[in-house]
């Protein structure tokens, strides 16, 4: 049942079924402050709740801080 993901280049194991949004919150990210790519595809903001993480997913999370 365990899933192995790659998150920002590092191995990560996941024991439960999680949506991208749940995963981000669990990892301490605010989903509104990041852009995310899964297996080379950028995830639209509207899909964060419906996308469920799968074994082998390669995830890139880019967090933005304020200022410009």
């Amino acid at each position, binding site marked *: 049942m365990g899933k192995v993901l790659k998150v920002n280049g590092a191995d990560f194991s996941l024991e439960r079924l999680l949506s991208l949004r749940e995963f981000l919150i669990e990892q301490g990210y605010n989903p*509104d402050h990041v*852009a995310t790519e899964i297996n080379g595809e950028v995830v639209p*903001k509207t899909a964060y709740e419906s996308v469920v993480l799968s074994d082998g997913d390669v995830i890139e999370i*880019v967090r933005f*801080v304020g*200022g*410009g």
Partner: protein
Amino acid sequence: MDVDTPEIHGKLKNAKVAIAGLGGLGSHIAVSLARIGVGMLLLVDDDVVDLSNLNRQMYFIKHLGMPKTQALQEQIEQINPLVHVKIRTVRVEDHHVVELFEGYDVMCEAFDTQEAKAMLVSAALSRLPDLKVVAASGMAGYGSSNGICTERRMKNLYVCGDGEADAAAGMGLMAPRVQICAGHQANMVLRLLVGLEDV
């Protein structure tokens, strides 16, 4: 004195670059790209020039109260009148992204808030697969200049900044570091326009 090769000059002249947000980052990116002769610039911002902008943004006293798009268009006309400047004085919402940026080679994300940055980058990359995005994250304060770098984080996403220094009380946005970050963004745009994809 033009010391560029005709080949480089031609690539820049045919390039179309969009800049979203004309604050401390975007105003300097726009001026840099105008000076090197990027053929078409799209400037997007819904704000007017305010006194509090003059500590780091490329505007003058005479621009106070004027839309940033117009103030910058006027300056570029005085720097390099050969640049074709298009302006859109609108607030960029998720549903505008395709209409605004379709057909551009590169879009610079130069917004202020975390939410706006994340929204724009996600929408642009997910809906415009040919667009390259050069974004910014982390340039507040007076930490080391060398903490600011350019990274390629996704196939079409480059991020400039230190990734950490959020604008906060006691650590505001200050001209030198904001300009360093804008310089990183403008140089990454230049590299992409001449055909270099690595940072």
